[in-house]
């Protein structure tokens, strides 16, 4: 069914109502509320163009379009984007073709809407939007259309269009995907044919089957099974060969053995004797195994896709200093060496260059793997892909795009990733011994029957090999995890780490960040005071200018206080503390009391403090207190978590009073306040030392380290990019209250995996003796294996129907269609 946004939220993008104003529009006869002018504009346009069906078809909330920029600027943006798109147009026979990467698509309905809208443009010949790769292929009649019109239309819908660059992983996976499908297709077709012929052969046993006819049919079967063996079964054969070459035994070994043995023996039989042929077993066996492997591949693919979203890691739009020293937004591609750009704190540096002045804290985790920030001074080199931590910096551009270190690294990474990622942990440890056991059994069975009744050796050995094939076992985990990941997708959780679900079930401690996680993160000023004779407006102007450009919710709230422009010569942000800078010649400090006291030695000890204080010349001249609304359902969440015997924690950089009050209200076990990022990290590390697993839920810049350190981490969708990159999963709905459901799904997944494994192994253990004794012909063995795997699959599908009957059931999400593409 279509996506239904929650009550009390924007109908278009499902965000909370934060701006004052009434934006409503009638859609399908019902008045709907939007959260801002941007969403309203898009909705209006959809309605005006008879595209309101979008709201019917969509399976996900829309992306919130950037706030409405003045027409002129908007045009400029479109024009700039068109500029980078124009060179990529391919013209042939008076037809122009272009491939665009679309940003902001959240589900297939977005693709539909774009297609429909663009098709209406005069001159457009064809539009194909792929919702999986987010790629639009557009063809139009030369001279009848300007590419800027296309870009404008896309912008008007709330999306962004960029030239499509063959993103490595994404396209390679598409190619691999097709390979898989081809193998499965060939295997299916041949299986069907061979089985049809087998029917003829079986029916002929009782009757007098002409030897020539039988021979003919057998040869045809051999011919048909050949592509299955040589092409479709290739992954297994290669896998087994690789494994043996390294002196290892993996599951591919008995599988390849069974398939090859069956085939060769059957050929021999066809040439010589009267026994049965097993071409049908070869085909069916291969087919089913292929399907299992493909499922596994798909789930890995989905996870890679999910992570890939942030391999638009480098920002596409950059703030460049113009000759008049003002900041303009330009595209990344338009930068040339020598340009000066501004990189805000928390954002990724998009180019190779060096620091123009001042100091900076840079996270170069992508290079060194170390989270610890590197300190850079004036003139120090900076690399594309690293994250600017503390304060906005000015960078002089040296290398852009393909020439950067980062691009180099990506190429290397691409090559390195030809190797398969590790398979699900549970299986690996079992596999080796299992395979060894199977081979031993097979050999002893062969030896036994060779002495007793040699003509039974082949069918029995085949049956044993087929029946012992751990096909169901290898499907046990991937199917469950695929289904669990889909179900989590319904809860708007984007899982990136493959181990995330499993590790989640082992968690004992749950640590929450406060601002932005337990609370909405949109601060409003509750109270303000000025002292020492400063006027409100003066203070407002100082604070607004000082906090300009900051990302912390406090900075966002304060920067809107005044329109008066003052000259800020220098500005430094200290994460977890505050901000200081030179405004019109005076140095002001704005931050929390402990920071002002501790770091800046500006004030004395005081018992009660909250919010932030403005200080100049060691005098407190203003005080601001903020209101931050709690997210919905938090009380029930904590109650439920406590009931389930989790230890809950709140870690926050906020003042002790606020945090303690919140902790008390909610019933959280432990809380710690006024924490610096380092302290948060220490806290988590200490918890982990008692060998307890920790789940961290956070969103801000100061959570990134903790998110990476925790055993399991969940980043809020509304959080900072860096936090999202460091976490194992992202909660794009920001509804922390769903945590109980999420944990329940993970636990269910684990239970189902256990059930599947027990079933798979029991089946094998029970069936092998029967096969060894000779009671199971190979075709029956193949069927048994099929049924066993089907059982595992069906069991895993139960996860999809999971409904959390406990607290926090969110009604607006009655989901029957399981949909994948979040964010």
């Amino acid at each position, binding site marked *: 069914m279509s996506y239904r946004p929650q009550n009390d939220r924007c109908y278009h993008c499902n965000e909370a109502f934060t701006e004052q104003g009434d934006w409503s529009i009638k859609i399908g006869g019902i008045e709907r509320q939007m959260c801002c002018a941007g969403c309203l504009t898009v909705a209006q346009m959809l309605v005006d163009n*008879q595209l309101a*069906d979008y709201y019917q*078809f969509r399976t996900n909330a829309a992306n919130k379009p950037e706030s409405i920029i003045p027409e002129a600027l908007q045009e400029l943006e479109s024009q700039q984007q068109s500029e980078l798109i124009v060179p990529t147009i391919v013209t042939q026979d008076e037809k122009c073709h272009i491939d665009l990467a679309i940003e902001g698509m959240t*589900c*297939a*309905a977005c*693709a*539909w809407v774009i*297609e*429909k809208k663009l*098709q*209406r443009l005069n001159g*457009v*010949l*064809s*539009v194909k*939007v*792929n*919702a*999986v*790769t987010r790629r639009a292929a557009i063809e139009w009649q030369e001279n009848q259309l300007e590419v800027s019109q296309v870009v404008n239309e896309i912008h008007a819908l709330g999306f962004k269009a960029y030239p499509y660059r063959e993103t490595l992983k994404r396209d390679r996976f*598409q190619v691999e*995907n*097709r390979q898989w*499908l*081809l193998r499965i*297709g*060939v295997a299916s*077709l*041949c299986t069907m*044919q061979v089985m049809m*012929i087998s029917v*003829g052969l079986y029916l002929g046993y009782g009757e007098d089957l*002409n030897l020539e*006819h039988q021979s*003919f*049919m057998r040869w*045809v079967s051999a*011919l*048909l099974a050949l592509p299955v063996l040589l092409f479709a079964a290739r992954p297994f054969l290669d896998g087994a060969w690789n494994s043996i070459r390294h002196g290892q035994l993996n599951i591919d070994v008995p599988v390849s053995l069974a398939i090859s043995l069956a085939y060769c023996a059957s050929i021999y039989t066809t040439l010589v004797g009267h026994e049965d042929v097993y071409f049908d077993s070869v085909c069916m066996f291969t087919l089913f195994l292929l399907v299992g492997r493909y499922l596994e591949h798909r789930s890995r693919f989905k996870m890679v896709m999910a992570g890939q979203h942030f391999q638009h890691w480098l920002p596409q739009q950059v703030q460049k200093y113009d000759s008049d020293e003002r900041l303009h937004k330009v595209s990344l591609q338009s930068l040339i060496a020598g340009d000066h750009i501004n990189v805000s704190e928390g954002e990724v540096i998009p180019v190779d260059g060096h620091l123009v002045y001042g100091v900076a804290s840079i996270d170069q985790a992508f290079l060194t793997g170390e989270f610890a920030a590197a300190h850079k001074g004036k003139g120090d080199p900076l690399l594309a892909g690293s994250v600017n931590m503390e304060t906005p910096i000015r960078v002089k551009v040296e290398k852009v795009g393909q020439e950067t270190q980062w691009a180099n690294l990506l190429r290397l990474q691409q090559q390195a990733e030809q190797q398969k990622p590790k398979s699900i942990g549970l299986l690996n440890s079992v596999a080796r011994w299992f395979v060894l056991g199977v081979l031993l059994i097979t050999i002893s069975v062969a030896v036994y029957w060779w002495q007793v009744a040699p003509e039974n050796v082949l069918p029995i050995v085949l049956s044993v090999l087929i029946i012992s094939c751990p096909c169901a076992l290898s499907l046990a985990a991937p199917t469950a995890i695929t289904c669990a990941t889909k179900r989590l997708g319904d809860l708007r959780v984007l899982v990136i780490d493959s181990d995330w679900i499993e590790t989640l079930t082992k968690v004992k401690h749950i640590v929450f960040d406060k601002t932005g996680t337990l609370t909405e993160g949109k601060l409003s000023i509750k109270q303000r005071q000025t002292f020492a004779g400063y006027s409100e407006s003066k203070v407002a102007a100082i604070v607004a200018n000082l906090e300009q450009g900051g990302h912390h919710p406090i900075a966002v709230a304060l920067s809107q206080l005044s329109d008066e422009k003052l000259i800020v010569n220098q500005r430094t942000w200290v994460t977890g503390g505050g901000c200081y800078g030179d405004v019109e010649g005076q140095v002001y400090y704005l931050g929390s009391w402990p920071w002002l006291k501790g770091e800046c030695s500006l004030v004395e000890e005081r018992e009660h403090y909250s919010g932030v204080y403005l200080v100049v010349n060691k005098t407190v001249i203003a005080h601001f207190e903020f209101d931050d609304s709690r997210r919905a359902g938090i009380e029930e969440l904590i109650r439920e978590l406590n009931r389930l015997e989790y230890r809950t924690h709140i870690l926050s950089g906020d003042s002790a009073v606020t945090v303690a009050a919140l902790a008390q209200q909610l019933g959280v076990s432990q809380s710690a306040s006024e924490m610096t990022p380092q302290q948060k990290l220490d806290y988590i590390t200490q918890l982990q030392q008692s060998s307890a697993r920790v789940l961290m839920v956070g969103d801000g810049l100061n959570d990134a380290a903790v998110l990476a350190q925790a055993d399991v981490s969940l980043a809020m969708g509304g959080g900072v990019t860096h936090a999202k990159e460091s976490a194992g999963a992202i909660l794009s709905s920001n509804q922390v209250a769903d945590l109980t459901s999420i944990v329940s799904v993970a636990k269910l997944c684990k239970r189902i995996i256990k059930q599947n494994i027990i079933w798979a192994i029991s089946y094998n253990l029970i069936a092998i003796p029967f096969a060894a004794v000779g009671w199971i012909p190979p075709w029956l063995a193949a069927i048994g294996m099929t049924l066993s795997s089907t059982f595992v699959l069906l069991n895993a599908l139960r996860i999809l129907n999971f409904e959390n009957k406990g607290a926090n059931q969110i009604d607006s999400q009655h989901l029957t269609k399981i*949909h994948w*593409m979040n964010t």
Partner: protein
Amino acid sequence: MNAIYWLIPLTLILLAVAVKILLWTLNNEQYDDLETPALRILSDDDEQDTLDHL
């Protein structure tokens, strides 16, 4: 029964055609995105240029 001597080769030819078609659909990117095409047919507006879009 001798019919199988030409029936089966005929089947094989058809099979080869089927595989060829499979290859074509794969290369034509038909399996790349399975959700969007489902939506394409759902609206019933009066487009003049529908015929050009396959």
